[in-house]
Structures are given as structure tokens and as C-alpha cells.
């Protein structure tokens, strides 16, 4: 028997103001995901949720059968016509992702609404994890073979005197705990798929795993976003923020 859940998207409480909208944002993908104890109804009645969202997400992507992985844990993807937004459903998780992020005030109600409709339909009240992930891709040009690290990041990498600190490549991953969850930050130099361009991948993944309820999605997504925003603003160097604000010769 489904428990009664909050069916409206509560307005965000007034805080110190959302992040400034950056004209040249490096954000390429944002994901909001919830996980829950395995619910067979999701797998057996997948079509019912699809029926609720098919007008907006008409394209159906089915999973490949991967050797060694239970097929029931593999997700279906429902995509918008242009493929910009995706809803992912599986026996123990749900996710909404977009490649066109127009600010948290637009993303928040969309993500919460889709997730709440999913939880309501399948009677999911207990969650095991929520996650909000921001993936940024920042193209850069090398100064000789060396990364122009300080132009983009405030992160100081202090090495012993015996190690050169003119980095040619960097891959840094760290997980930090805070009051409301844990944030994994990844900063890595990489190449584009065709190997022609250098980019930094700046990936923030805020996760909550303790005593979660499907009725509090708005709180969870707000806390995740607020903390991630603070970390992002602190990590990005002022010189690159100017580029994001459009203060460039273009």
C-alpha cells in the first residue's frame, strides 16, 4: 500500500541567492539520482511510468545484456526527442539528467517532479541514496607542454622540492564529508574523443546516504546543490570566473 507522499514541489526557501548565472558556463551535464531497496514493481510495470512521461520522453533505450550483470538491475532510458534530457529507471534506482542546464531554479522542479511521480507510482518511500552530480568540461590551451592550472583552479598542489610542479597531466579525486552528506570532487586533464582538444573535467558528485525518505527530495536536492555551489565557487579561479561571466575578447 503506497504511503502518502508529498505531491507538490515545495518552493525553495529564500537563501542568500542562487549562484550567478554564467554566460559561458562549462557545465555539460547534471544528474539527480535516487536509489532505493529493490522494487520488482518497477521492473514489471515499467510501462506504467513510461505512460506518465512518454509525451515528453518518447524515446526508449533498452539496456544491453552484460555478462555477469543481472539483467534486472540494468536500466531503461527514456529520452526527449532531441536526447537532451533522460530519465533512467531500474529496479533499485531512478535518475533524471539533462545536458542543457538553465539554472537550478529550472532544474529543481523538473527533477523533483519526475522523481516524486516515480516514487508515488511505485510506492517508494525509503531511499538508500540520493546524488546530485555536476559535470563541467573546460577546454584549455597548454602553455608549452604544461597545464595552465592556476588560471582555472585555486587548488594548490604542493609537492616536495624533488618533484617538479609543472604538471603535464593531472587526475585528482577526493571525497569530503560534510554535515549533510559527502562530496566527491574530480579534476582531471583529458582529451576530447577525437584526441584533438585538451580539456579539464571538473566533476562534483554530492551524495546522501543516511536515513532518507522520498518525501524529502526537495530538502535533499537543495542541500546537495547549495554545498556543491559553494565548493565550485571556491575551486574555480577568479581568472576563469571572468571568462564564465563573459568578460572576454570574443
Amino acid at each position, binding site marked *: 500500500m503506497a504511503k502518502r507522499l508529498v505531491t507538490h514541489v515545495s518552493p525553495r526557501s529564500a537563501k542568500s541567492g542562487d549562484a550567478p548565472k554564467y554566460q559561458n558556463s562549462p557545465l*555539460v*551535464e547534471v544528474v539527480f539520482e535516487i536509489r532505493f531497496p529493490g522494487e520488482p514493481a518497477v521492473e514489471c510495470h515499467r510501462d506504467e511510468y513510461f505512460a506518465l512521461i512518454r509525451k515528453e520522453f518518447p524515446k526508449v533505450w533498452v539496456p544491453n545484456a552484460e555478462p555477469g550483470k543481472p539483467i534486472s538491475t540494468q536500466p531503461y532510458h527514456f529520452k526527449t526527442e532531441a536526447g537532451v534530457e533522460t530519465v533512467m529507471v531500474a529496479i533499485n534506482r531512478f535518475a533524471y*539528467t539533462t545536458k542543457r542546464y538553465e539554472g537550478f531554479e529550472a532544474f529543481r522542479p523538473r527533477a523533483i517532479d519526475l522523481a516524486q511521480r516515480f516514487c508515488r507510482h511505485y510506492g517508494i518511500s525509503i531511499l538508500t541514496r540520493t546524488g546530485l*552530480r555536476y559535470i563541467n568540461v573546460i*577546454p584549455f590551451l597548454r602553455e608549452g607542454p604544461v597545464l595552465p592550472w592556476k588560471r582555472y583552479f585555486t587548488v594548490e598542489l604542493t609537492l616536495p622540492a624533488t618533484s617538479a610542479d609543472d604538471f603535464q597531466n593531472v587526475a585528482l579525486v577526493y571525497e569530503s564529508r560534510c554535515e549533510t552528506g559527502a562530496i566527491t570532487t574530480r579534476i582531471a586533464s583529458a582529451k576530447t*574523443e577525437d584526441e*584533438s582538444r585538451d580539456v579539464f573535467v571538473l566533476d562534483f558528485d554530492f551524495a546522501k546516504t543516511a536515513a532518507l525518505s522520498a518525501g524529502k527530495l526537495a530538502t535533499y536536492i537543495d542541500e546537495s546543490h547549495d554545498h556543491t555551489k559553494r565548493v565550485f565557487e571556491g575551486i574555480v579561479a577568479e581568472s576563469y570566473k571572468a571568462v564564465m561571466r563573459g568578460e*572576454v*575578447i570574443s
Partner: protein
Amino acid sequence: MSVAPAISSWFAHVGTSIHYRKPVELRDETGDLVVSASPPSAKSPTVLWSIQSDDHRLRATKAVTVHLRREGLYWFAENESLRVFAHGSTQAEALSEFQEHVAYFHQYFQRLTADEVVGEGARLKRLFADSFEPT
């Protein structure tokens, strides 16, 4: 997209024993079943922070966006405001030519007096003067 490995396993050789220490896996990722392994193309602009030619080095007062694209066998590097368009058979060549052009036009407009330019020429003279300074 290839990414330099974040953490690789390493081992310490102690006498005749070899101890393998596996790295701590930090990567329970949100959306790992929906986010593609290769991130989408970057949307934000590529920028130069300084201009370096054979003869000159200029500091840019603001980052200079460089619109890089490949067409057929050639790379093109362009900036609309500066009216600089360069090309090369490699990306590095195109960028090098781009910087040569910027350095050239910076000097060129510096030599012109205000009454020797009008319209677009005046705009470019102001823009180059305001945007770059020799180092």
C-alpha cells in the same frame, strides 16, 4: 576520451616479499548507469591568456577567445571582435599563426594615429590598445 588514471595500483618490494596495495575505490558515482563514459563536447570557449609571437609577447587584459574548428585538412583559429582569422595544417600551427596576426595588428594599429583611422579601423585600434600590453 582518455583520462589519465586517477589512482593506479602500486606495490612495495620488501626483501623477497612483494606487497600489493590496492587503492581505495572512491567512485560510487551518481548516474553511473546514465552518464556516458565520454563527456559531451565542451560548450564554453577556449581562451588564450597571453599572445606569444616570434618577436613579441603581449599580456591580454582579458582572456581572448579562440574559436577553433577543423574543416577538411585544415584547422582554423578565429576571433570575431579582433577580426583575426588564421589557419594551419595542425591546431598548433593555426594557434601560432593566430598569435602572429594578433601581435602584428597590435603593432600596426599602434603606429597609426587617431586621425588615420575611421569606423571599423578606429574600433580596432581602440580594441587592440585596450586589450593588450607588451611584456
